[in-house]
């Protein structure tokens, strides 16, 4: 079961080490109104360790949110997957800085990282900076980062079915965060996340 941390409420650990064969599923969630500076380092220190790290930040107003993540593959045969999604509006500022480090002997590493952002206003500032630092040669790594707007064709499709603009917008945001929100197993919290989209 994925451990969920509500940024601004739960203390997010600064550093985590995963030993041989250990598995960690973790979700970081920042609800509207939360400003914070988060720094997290996960060290994969034993073979066959696996990290699934998800993040979601909803910053519709004046929030200031920075997320620094370092995932260090110190030994071989480990897997890390990261997926961070953000909705940024109003005059808020967000930064996602993600470093994947693969040590020289960490062969057969698999490391993936994605950060996608929905920018709702021109005044909002979204920064995303993925970084790869790879010293091994037998690795499978990928990263992707996007900052986009609500898709107009998608919106028109919904409106042509009679769904009004504001509801269409909400469905689009539900659609956007669904891959991360689905990792939150606590139904009450998941509903709370979806409900908070009405503030975006």
């Amino acid at each position, binding site marked *: 079961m994925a451990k969920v941390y509500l940024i601004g409420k739960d203390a997010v650990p600064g550093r985590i080490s995963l030993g041989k064969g250990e598995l960690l599923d973790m979700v970081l969630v920042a609800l509207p109104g939360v400003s914070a500076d988060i720094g997290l380092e996960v060290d994969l220190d034993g073979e066959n360790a696996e990290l699934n790290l998800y993040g979601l930040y909803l910053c519709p107003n004046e929030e200031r949110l920075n997320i620094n993540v370092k995932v260090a593959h110190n030994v071989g045969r480990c897997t890390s997957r990261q997926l961070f999604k953000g909705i940024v509006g109003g005059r808020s500022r967000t930064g996602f800085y993600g470093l994947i480090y693969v040590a020289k002997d960490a062969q057969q590493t698999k490391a993936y990282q994605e950060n996608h952002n929905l920018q709702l206003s021109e005044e909002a500032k979204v920064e995303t900076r993925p970084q790869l630092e790879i010293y091994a040669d037998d690795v499978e790594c990928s990263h992707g980062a996007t900052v986009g707007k609500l898709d*107009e*064709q*998608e919106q*028109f*499709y*919904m*409106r*042509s*079915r*009679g*769904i*009004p*603009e504001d*509801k269409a917008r909400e*469905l*689009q945001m*539900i*659609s*956007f*965060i*669904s*891959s991360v*929100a*689905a990792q939150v197993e606590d139904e009450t919290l998941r509903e709370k996340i979806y409900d908070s989209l009405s503030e975006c």
Partner: protein
Amino acid sequence: MSEVLLEIKGLHAEVEGKEILKGVDLAIRRGEVHAVMGPNGAGKSTLSAVLTGRPDYTVTAGSVTFAGRDLLTMSPEERSWAGLFLSFQYPIEIPGVSITNFMKAAINARRKAAGQEEMKPAEFLKLMKEKMAFVQMKGEFAKREVNVGFSGGEKKRNEIFQMAMLDPTLAILDETDSGLDVDALKIVAQGVNDLRSPEKAAIIVTHYQKLLEYVVPDVVHVLKEGRIVRTGGRELVDIIEKEGFEKIDG
């Protein structure tokens, strides 16, 4: 003769500054099925887009009246509430939103606009079941994400499913027959035929005659270079089939 449901007069429209429709005149009466045929680039999809209010298309001249109302001043959702439906040529995928939630939002928005209460869950499920059976979709279809991982045929069946759910007064089918196998084509045709009634009408936009074998149109229009160049009965479909669009003009 029955009442005119849709009346298009001197319609000019452009997209990205390029004029596509150059004076379209068209009148559709209740109870009729019209086919709009024409070669690629004639403006068929632009006509569908303008009628349903796609924001990136601009009407530069002309008027459209739908059930007595000025259609062009209405938002896309208002047009839907008024009874207009477009079956998309390229249906959009919406990950993370189930067909059930999508249709619930659509149905209840329309009821809200009409000052009605939300549909009761049991009534909604019954309607879903009935219309799913109608397009031969299995139970799990309701839980699937809108158009995600659907085959071409499934996407078009989903359009017809949505059409049946919303029960429009005027259905516009934009190239619904392209890329369909015969079985899916028959389902689509059945969907349109089932909708036929003295109060309703449909526009079938296509450049094939395939769908028109199953849904026989009352009136056929040929659209070329942004204008209707010829209007006739169903015999026009056979002429196009034999001679192509090249020889047809005013």
